[in-house]
């Protein structure tokens, strides 16, 4: 054991270095204060740290690697020419306007519709002319959109006051981009992990092993499949499947014995390989040369990268494919195939054992096999592609210029660098969401989404959303169902209903997604800890009987270890000491006899308290230090009290949920069970008492709830903004609510609810509202809408303009002036004016001639009114509802001359049909608004704000809602907010005793008197505050009816849709009913008279449509008959005629 003796640190040494602060055996911390670690965690990591970390890693580390990998641009025409990028950095966000570079703030970008981006600054050296080598620094090669709150963002490290000063909300988590004024989120993408052996079944039910290799250069998928007992290798570069033994021979393992030794000498494996070995013999492939020759006939002529024009023999080509394309992630140095051979044999071993034991088949949905792709990774893919494109462009230009024999001046390639390639590439990709990376043939759409600012929760929920690559249309339940390995990593409740159910997921509260960690030092460390290098091992050790375990790092075979338990323990100890990255995971797989060290990006992990010898490492002493502020989250990590576990490592750990469950074998302790939920489900009080789908419904509805959306909400000009006038913070909170700042940006009201029947207007979940409550501001909301006008510049130097409203002189009648009422002298509406439907708010004019060049300067000045055509923007809104101009912003950006944004505002009180919901997935519309005097009242004279029908409870089983009512009532009575935290919270018993103490019934049921009869109700009524959300669906936005109105031009049928004041369609099913009923007159009225009835003239002689004065075809008018038919029918006949089909009508009297 020469290797281990050289470098392995003694276990005791490691332990000493970890616990240098003395023995750990101290009293156990009490369960109550453990959750206080969460605020510390969120203070350091934030809610969207995964996005920010990923982006930071990209702009600080990854981008440099990419440049380094593609640093050189050469020229075919001139061998002395070169361009080399030596360094690259991303600057601070700025904007360049009229050659002036100025720092920009995100809020400015939102308002002015510009991109929040920073220059990518490169240092380069290149040849100019013959001998001169130029070095340039500070060359801007493009602009990179900057993620808010990332290390490059101006908001980074700013305090709340500083954030407020730059117009930013301190509670906003960041993690998104502002591209052309639109907030865009790059959603987390979930995919199967790369470079890992996955044993599964093909569509015939046969066992197969597959590996998706991914390197910087290429991605390829290698499959091992079975065909009649023999195992074959399937790869895109091969025209057909190649027997695996042939492949192994081609890689230099010629003897059958060696192959079997590499796989394992146990009878199962020998038998499993028998058919394959026989096949090779049958094929006559017994040597490496024969094998390569065999494979060379199967290799598809693949397009080699430009530059290597050297012709190769087919055998060399086959060898190259085996070395570089098949299992590309296993490096083959100087055609030493040994690591790859071992890897293939491992795949075979896994496959054969899975053939005998189905439990060895990997679960595709197991979350340890999944990787999450974040903004940084996606951007780095894009950047590498764009950078290669830039380099290719430069090369093409260099080729073009340098191939010409004579040149006027020395060719300066730096002048050819176009910033737009990268700048536009980024902004286009982010704003459309289409990710196309040519070298991987990747074509993905919907990668980015507009950040939903409907409510604070919807924005936050979007930042934790995970999209699956799985197609939505497929009707399989596997990928959609909740996998046990998702415990603690993904929220079990927060997923949409319907087609994306289970495919769109959300991160749990404390989940972190890793970024790439350099694997070389880890490999070195592993070697020092006694791993025997794979290159140095004889075949015998891999399979069979030796007590040895293979060590993989990021799916790549590193070597073998003889004492895996100690190896794993030492690695973990080192990690707890901080000698290894905190996110590196080590997993011992006992059945496969492998140790997996993972340091790759995209693994989900979460923090857990370390337990050693049955004692949690975190003690009350630590907690009190945390409370005093002398200790922070990083200290816990640094001292190895808390560590991050990924899904794989979690699988080999024993995690206690509560401290009382800790026993001798326990390795970790949960910080708090509430962390298994995400931010949306975290809002629900007592979610553990609800029927599970109700929590899912609330997760969807919480995103539609109105309230405060951000601290800078009044400074924002969003397309539509729903705000509550008087939002409340909930009486029954949860820890999550405190952690995410929901109580500062709440969305709802604490409504006093009486659970009783009232009138008949409360059936089907309808709610009864108290008019007095509405008068006092309950559910009152502000709806703000944006209208924007851009003044365009045209090619012929003309541009749009805004003119003052016409004054009441002469020809202009005062009635016509009515429409210009709200305009100021500058032609733009004045702030505070009341808008009515039809009012003009921007008096814009567009030049008539935008294509021809106008030479006359006078015409250019636009003095002539005839040169412009009015194109005013007018307001269209519901009648009898007040809307006001809230804000007018005039600015400019690089695309348009002027940007004018107008925000209009209307305040709405709840009305019949508006939608409300509690936090338990119990939505309902307002069915009736009742005056205070008619509402039931309790002994204190209190009338409820909302009456909810008790039928909402039995089938929904939302016990949490009842508990919320009790806890809320207790909160009101003793003036202390209550907690309904998941798997915890205030006890019902405690709340009930508070009620009793204040003279209320212990069950929350009050003696209630009817407000109508004045007599007591014959039942006690469950009465108390419940947090109600007003949802964005309001009747005013949806109500629509028409008697008559516009018609479509082509068909003359009524238009469709509310926005076009359309008709209500009598569809085919309704038509069928009328036909079935025999209501022919009604049918005729609906389909012809009230729709597109038309009198056409038909020539009875030729049967074609004709002019009413006579048929031009028959040159007579005597056969012409008028006929009533739908205009669409007339249109059809004419269209048929135009296609040389003659529809002839035969008329007869009925």
């Amino acid at each position, binding site marked *: 054991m020469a290797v281990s003796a050289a470098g392995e640190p003694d276990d005791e040494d490691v332990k000493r270095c970890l616990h240098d602060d003395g023995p750990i055996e101290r009293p156990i911390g009490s369960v109550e204060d453990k959750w206080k670690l969460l605020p510390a965690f969120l203070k350091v990591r934030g809610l969207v740290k995964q996005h920010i970390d990923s982006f930071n890693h990209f702009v600080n580390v990854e981008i440099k690697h990419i440049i380094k990998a593609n640093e050189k641009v050469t020229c075919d025409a001139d061998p002395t020419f070169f361009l080399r990028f030596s360094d690259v950095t991303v600057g601070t966000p700025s904007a360049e306007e009229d050659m002036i570079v100025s720092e920009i703030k995100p809020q400015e970008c939102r308002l002015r519709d510009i991109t929040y981006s920073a220059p990518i600054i490169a240092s380069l050296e290149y040849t100019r002319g013959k001998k001169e080598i130029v070095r340039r620094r500070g060359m801007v090669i493009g602009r990179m959109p900057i993620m808010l709150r990332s290390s490059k963002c101006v908001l980074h490290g700013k305090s709340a006051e500083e954030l407020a000063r730059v117009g930013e909300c301190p509670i906003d988590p960041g993690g998104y981009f502002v591209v052309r004024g639109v907030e865009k989120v790059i959603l987390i993408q979930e995919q199967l992990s790369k470079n890992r052996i996955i044993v599964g079944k093909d569509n015939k039910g046969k066992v197969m092993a597959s590996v998706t290799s991914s390197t910087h250069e290429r991605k390829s998928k290698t499959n091992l499949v079975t065909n009649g007992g023999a195992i074959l290798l399937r790869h895109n570069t091969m025209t057909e499947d190649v027997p695996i033994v042939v492949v192994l021979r081609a890689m230099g393992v010629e003897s059958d014995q060696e192959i079997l030794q590499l796989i394992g000498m146990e009878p199962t494996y020998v038998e499993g390989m028998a058919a394959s070995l026989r096949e090779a013999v049958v094929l006559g492939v017994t040597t490496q040369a024969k094998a390569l020759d065999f494979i060379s006939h199967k290799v598809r002529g693949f397009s080699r990268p430009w530059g290597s024009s050297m012709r190769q023999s087919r055998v060399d080509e086959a060898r190259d494919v085996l070395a570089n394309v098949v299992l590309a992630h296993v490096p083959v140095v100087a055609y030493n195939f040994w690591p790859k051979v071992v890897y293939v044999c491992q795949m075979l071993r896994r496959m054969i054992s899975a053939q005998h034991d189905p439990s060895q088949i990997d679960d595709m949905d197991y979350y340890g096999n999944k990787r999450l792709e974040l903004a940084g990774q996606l951007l780095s893919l894009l950047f590498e592609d764009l950078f290669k494109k830039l380099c290719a462009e430069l090369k093409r230009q260099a080729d073009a210029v340098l191939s010409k024999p004579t040149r006027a001046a020395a060719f300066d390639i730096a002048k050819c660098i176009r910033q737009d390639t990268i700048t536009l590439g980024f902004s286009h990709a982010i704003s459309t969401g289409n990710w196309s990376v040519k070298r991987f043939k990747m074509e993905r759409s919907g990668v980015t989404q507009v950040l939903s600012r409907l409510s604070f929760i919807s924005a936050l929920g979007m930042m934790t959303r995970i999209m699956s690559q799985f197609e939505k249309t497929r009707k399989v339940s596997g990928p959609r169902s909740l996998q046990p390995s998702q415990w603690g990593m993904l929220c079990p409740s927060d997923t949409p209903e319907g087609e994306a159910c289970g495919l769109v997921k959300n991160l749990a509260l404390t989940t972190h997604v890793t970024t790439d960690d350099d694997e070389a030092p880890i490999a070195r460390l592993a070697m020092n800890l006694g791993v025997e290098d794979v290159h140095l091992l004889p075949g015998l050790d891999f399979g069979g009987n030796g007590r040895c375990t293979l060590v993989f790092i990021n799916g790549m075979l590193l070597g073998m270890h003889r004492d895996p338990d100690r190896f794993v323990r030492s690695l973990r100890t080192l990690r707890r000491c901080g000698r290894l990255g905190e996110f590196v995971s080590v997993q011992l797989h006992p059945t496969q006899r492998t140790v997996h060290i993972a340091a790759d990006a995209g693994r989900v992990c979460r923090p857990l308290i370390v337990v050693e010898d049955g004692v949690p490492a975190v003690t009350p002493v630590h907690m009190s230090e945390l409370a005093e502020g002398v200790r922070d989250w990083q200290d816990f990590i640094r001292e190895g009290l808390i560590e991050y576990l990924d899904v794989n490592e979690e699988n080999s750990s024993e995690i206690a949920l509560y401290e009382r469950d800790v026993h001798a074998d326990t390795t970790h302790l949960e910080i708090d069970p509430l962390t298994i939920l995400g931010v949306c489900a975290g809002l629900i009080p007592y979610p553990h008492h609800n029927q599970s789908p109700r929590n899912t419904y609330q997760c969807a509805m919480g995103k539609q709830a109105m309230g405060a959306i951000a601290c800078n909400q*009044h400074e924002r000009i969003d397309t539509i903004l729903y705000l509550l*006038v008087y939002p409340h913070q909930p009486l029954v909170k949860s820890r999550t609510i405190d952690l995410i700042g929901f109580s500062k940006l709440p969305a709802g009201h604490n409504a006093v609810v009486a659970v009783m029947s009232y009138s008949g207007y409360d059936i089907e979940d309808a709610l009864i509202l108290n*008019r*007095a*409550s509405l*008068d*006092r*501001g309950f559910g*009152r909301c*502000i709806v703000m809408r944006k209208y924007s006008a851009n003044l365009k510049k045209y090619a012929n130097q003309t541009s749009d303009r805004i003119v003052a409203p016409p004054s009441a002189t002469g020809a202009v009648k005062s009635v016509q002036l009515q429409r210009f009422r709200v305009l100021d002298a500058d032609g733009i509406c004045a702030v*505070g004016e009341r808008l009515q439907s039809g009012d003009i708010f921007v008096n814009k004019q567009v030049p008539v001639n935008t294509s021809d060049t106008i030479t006359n300067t006078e015409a250019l000045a636009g003095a002539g009114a005839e040169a412009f055509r009015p194109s005013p923007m007018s307001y269209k809104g519901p009648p009898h509802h*007040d809307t*006001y101009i*809230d804000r007018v912003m005039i600015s400019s950006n690089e695309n348009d001359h002027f940007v004018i944004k107008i925000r209009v*505002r209307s*305040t709405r009180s709840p009305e019949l049909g508006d939608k409300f919901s509690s936090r338990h997935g119990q939505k309902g519309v307002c069915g009736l608004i009742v*005056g*205070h*005097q008619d509402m039931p*009242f309790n*002994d*204190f*004279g*209190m*009338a409820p704000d909302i009456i909810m029908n008790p039928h909402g409870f039995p089938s929904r089983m939302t016990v949490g809602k009842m508990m919320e009512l009790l806890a809320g009532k207790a909160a009101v009575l003793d003036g202390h907010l209550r907690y309904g935290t998941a798997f915890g919270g205030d006890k019902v018993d405690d709340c009930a005793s508070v*009620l*009793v*103490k*204040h*003279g*209320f*019934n*212990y069950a929350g049921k009050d*003696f209630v*008197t009817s*407000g*109508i*009869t*004045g*007599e*007591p*109700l*014959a*039942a*006690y009524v469950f009465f108390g505050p419940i947090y109600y959300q007003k949802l964005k669906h309001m009747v005013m936005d949806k109500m629509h009816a028409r008697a008559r109105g516009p018609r479509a031009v082509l068909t003359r049928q009524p238009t469709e849709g509310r926005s076009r004041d359309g008709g209500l369609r009598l569809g085919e099913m309704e038509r069928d009913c009328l036909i079935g009923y025999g209501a022919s007159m009604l049918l005729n009225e609906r389909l012809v008279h009230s729709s597109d009835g038309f009198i056409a003239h038909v020539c009875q002689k030729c049967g074609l449509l004709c002019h009413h004065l006579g048929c031009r075809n028959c040159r007579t008018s005597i056969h012409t008959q008028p006929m009533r038919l739908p205009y669409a029918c007339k249109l059809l006949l004419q269209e048929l005629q135009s296609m040389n089909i003659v529809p002839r009508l035969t008329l007869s009297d009925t």
Partner: protein
Amino acid sequence: MAATRRPDALPPHLSDKHKHVTCASDAPTYTSTPEYAGVYASLGIDNSLDLDELRREVRIDVKSLTADEMVFDVVGIDAPIANALRRILLVEVPTMAIEKVWVLTNTSIIQDEVLAHRLGLIPIRADPARFEERGDSESNESNTLCFRLTAKCTHNADKSTDAEPYTGARVLSSQLTWVPQGDQAAGFAAEPPRPVHDDILIAKLRPGQEIEVECWCEKGVGKTHAKWSPVATASYRLLPRITFHQPVHGPLAAELKALCPLDVFDIEDVAGVPTAVAARPRSCTVCRECVREPAWAERVSLQRVRDHFIFSVESTGAMPPDRLVRDALGVLKQKALDTAQLLKDTRAQADGDVDMAGAVGAADE
């Protein structure tokens, strides 16, 4: 059959149901008043209303009266009458409230209509009797009160650390100043109209922001909008009545006393045995703790007296509560008179129609 007008003559089990609402632990029973005159006809008892008797029996005791709240008992009336009074108090007694707001300047972050809404809800102390409802007529001094609110926020000149950084940052209701219209100055000299409370926060300002609005108060009732409601709340409850099915002695009595969170029970010496008695039934809130356990429900009977209404009128401060009750009774009386008149008119009209018909018929002949 000569029915007696004595519900007291009812057999005990019926009399109990007639007079009391029983608050069992699961649900209240016998909640509605037997109104039909002939309910007890088979027992020879007449249940019809006798006005004289009502006049004789009805009792009003004012239990407490402060500037804001009045508590009084009304005994001997039916629930509909009590409820009518409650309903009128809530929504039909007129008050003055800000109805129109003319925004001259508003650079605060509070939107104009929200500001107007907030202003509207401020209770105004002004005697509504001295105003008319505006209806569709023009505003004038007889139907409108005018207030002006001018507020501006500036940086505080005093830069010391403990001083407020801004002056005028909080706009309070005290800043509403009455602007007398016409002869109002003289008429209201004794008690100038003003907001009831001086410390109602209307808006918060920051330096550079200002508000200048003119508010017009009008007379209205709570039916139109809750801002005109003169009461914070007005309601009644029935007098609790606690009796014992069987006497509660000794340790049980102490247990019962401890059971009640509102200390309704006392322990008295009855014939040498410490016995529980319901000493303070008024303070009972009908929380049913004393009948929660089945064993206790067998011993204790929790009831409410059907015709004993404990009224509580809590004024917003615009008018004293006793005045509100008087006004409400006035409205009730007026309603009764109106109804009586309406009936009379209808009768007269019906008679007239008959007469007319007769007359026409006669003419025809």
